[in-house]
């Protein structure tokens, strides 16, 4: 009896001492993003699913949002500020959304990990996987041929229109910028209670015209946005702002809401607004590709995911999460719930996404535009230069400054920023 007791006692002791060896230690990682509303809900749902499938990984998500736009800027500028403060203090997250021009800086100081880091692990990105990403997005994530980030919530600018207004005044959906101007003037002249086009007076508005007329913002590290193409782009918005008592083209920071309220025939926003437009408009709305200039080009928007972890275990856990969030199935889930574009061909061609697209023709527009997609400059100084060009646009459309003079002033300061921010 004593021998039996001693045997079981030893067995229990062995099990107890061996438990930590067999028990898998949990790793906790942190994901920062700047999404709100339904977009945040999708991220929360996907990370919860990930934790169910990977019980050894705990993911804490932190949605950065601003309590006061004037005081703290928008959610993404808050995210950037917290990221670099976190990096300086060693309190950075393991994963975060990042824009391409942020990535330039993070690559330069080795703050993030490229995905080639996992090449010799069972979780390496396969060649098929790499080819599955839509080239425009993949290239925006790559620096010197190395993929440092993974495309996540991507979109392109599209033209939204109020079909009821267009039908009432016999206006066709414009295919060129010239047609858009004529249509906007016609509507403003026909109905004094409506605006032609209503838009946010920021750099993207000039970018639509610059890129679709084969221009550029910056070339060879020098500002080019004040060349003839840039000045003509700004004149376009200035002329619209001055036509029909300011009714043909209204620049306002409230443009999206005013469009939803039915006050204008057109607005330009990213394709990520499509669900909102479809569900919130009390009129018949439509989505079209952006008008053409001498060529066709459409600016991309949205962020990518980057790994900031310094610890190898956390790096691997982060990589697993990024792979999960951007796999075909989950990429489709994000796209269908939010209006963001698929970042993979396999998502776009998946039966579930194809079925979704069939529900509303506007869903196809963003994907159709991708072949004309362009990305804004990735230089470190771009964020400040964006602000300067936006100021120039605002001054010109407010008739405070002539377009050329406003752009030249912005270009002068940009020259210093392009050489100074190093």
């Amino acid at each position, binding site marked *: 009896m004593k021998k039996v007791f001693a045997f079981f006692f030893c067995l229990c002791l062995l099990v107890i001492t061996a438990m930590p060896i067999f028990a898998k230690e949990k790793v906790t990682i942190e994901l920062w993003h700047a999404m709100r509303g339904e977009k945040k809900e999708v991220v929360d749902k996907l990370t919860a699913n990930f934790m169910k499938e990977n019980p050894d990984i705990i993911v804490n998500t932190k949605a950065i949002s*601003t309590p006061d736009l004037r005081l703290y*800027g928008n959610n993404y*500028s808050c995210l950037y500020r917290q990221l670099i403060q976190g990096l300086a203090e060693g309190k950075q997250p393991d994963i975060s959304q990042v824009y391409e021009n942020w990535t330039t800086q993070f690559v330069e100081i080795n703050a993030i990990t490229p995905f080639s880091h996992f090449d010799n692990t069972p979780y390496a990105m396969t060649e098929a996987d790499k080819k599955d990403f839509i080239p425009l997005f993949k290239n925006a994530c790559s620096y010197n041929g190395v993929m440092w980030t993974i495309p996540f919530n991507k979109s392109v600018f599209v033209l939204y229109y109020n079909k009821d207004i267009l039908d009432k005044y016999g206006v066709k959906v414009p295919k060129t910028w010239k047609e858009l101007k004529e249509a906007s003037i016609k509507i403003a002249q026909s109905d004094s209670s409506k605006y032609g086009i209503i838009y946010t007076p920021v750099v993207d508005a000039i970018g639509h015209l610059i890129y679709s007329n084969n221009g550029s913002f910056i070339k060879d590290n020098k500002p080019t946005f004040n060349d003839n193409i840039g000045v003509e782009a700004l004149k376009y918005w200035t002329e619209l702002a001055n036509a029909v008592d300011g009714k043909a083209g209204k620049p*306002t920071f409230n443009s999206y809401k005013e469009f939803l309220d039915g006050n204008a025939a057109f607005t330009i926003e990213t394709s990520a607004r499509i669900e909102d437009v479809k569900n919130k408009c009390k009129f018949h709305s439509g989505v079209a590709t952006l008008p053409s200039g001498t060529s066709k080009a459409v600016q991309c928007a949205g962020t990518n995911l980057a790994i900031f972890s310094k610890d190898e275990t956390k790096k691997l856990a982060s990589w697993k999460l990024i792979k999960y969030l951007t796999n075909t199935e989950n990429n489709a889930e994000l796209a269908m719930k939010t209006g963001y574009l698929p970042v993979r061909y396999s998502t776009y061609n998946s039966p579930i996404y194809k079925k979704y697209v069939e529900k509303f023709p506007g869903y196809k527009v963003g994907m159709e535009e991708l072949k004309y997609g362009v990305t804004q400059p990735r230089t*470190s*100084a771009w964020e400040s230069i964006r602000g300067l060009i936006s100021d120039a646009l605002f001054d010109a459309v407010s008739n405070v*400054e002539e377009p050329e003079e406003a752009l030249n002033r912005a270009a002068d300061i940009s020259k210093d*920023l392009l050489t100074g921010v*190093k």
Partner: protein
Amino acid sequence: MNRNLAVLIFGILITLLSFSKIEAAEKLFINRNDTGSKIILSNGTAYIPLEVVAEKLGTYVAWFPSSRIVIFNGVQISQFVRRNGIIYASAKEVANTFGGAIKYNKQTRDLYLSVGNMPFNNVANKSNSIDDDLTTVYPSSNAKSNPKNTIRPVGAKGTLAEGLKLPRNVSYSGVPSPESKLSTYMTNIPAIQSKGAFAQKSGKNSVFSVTVTDMEEISVIKNRYNASAGNKYFVIYVSQQNISSDVQIYTGKFTLSDENSHIYDYMEGLSNYWLSILKPGGVNYGYLVFEVPKSSRASKLILNALNQPPLAIDLIHG
């Protein structure tokens, strides 16, 4: 064929006549006199050419191109547009500088500006109907005009507001006014420190060198963001250089201290100072916007960076 041609010519004539009617409309009258100038109507606001008004009323307009500030009759104009080199200001704001009134004829779209007690009756010349068509736009019937507001003729005496520095690159219109006299017209302007007039001020510690290149006061940003009641905005143009031999990832946060040592955070959403990781020698530029009480005077710009004592730039003494 001939009939078609006649119809075409008739159509063209009608069109031309219609356009000529539009061209003739939207005129500016001052004290019943046609100025020969047009007004601009935009988004429900009537804008009138300042130079013309200044000449007719015997006052002046000053334009500060670098800071885009317009002074009319001693008052800073917040709502204005520039078109083809001409500055147009909100008719209401212009009238308010001297207690004037505005009437508008909806039919002809002409605008009538009156000074003081000049009556509007019989405007536009004896037509019974036109007078009836005029609508008082400003001031409203129950509003009282400010009796202190008057026309400030050239040469009016005043005290130069404390801290006011005469900006360079000022262009004048209206009654000719020598630069040396400008200060006498600006008695109502509370210590505007304009771009181009500001003597830059610098400070440094072992990591950063900070230079304030310019500073100005405004009440509205982008025609949208009005300072709260009793407040104003300070816009401070700043450059920051990493003078250390290390990469500086977080370059710190600027705050403003006023003369009473009240500290204010800058308004990131209204500023254009995008934080940048600065390598050794790297420089960042931009402007910071602070909202402060109207009575405040900017005293120090303070940079609070990690692991460093605060770096304060004296904005008054340099």
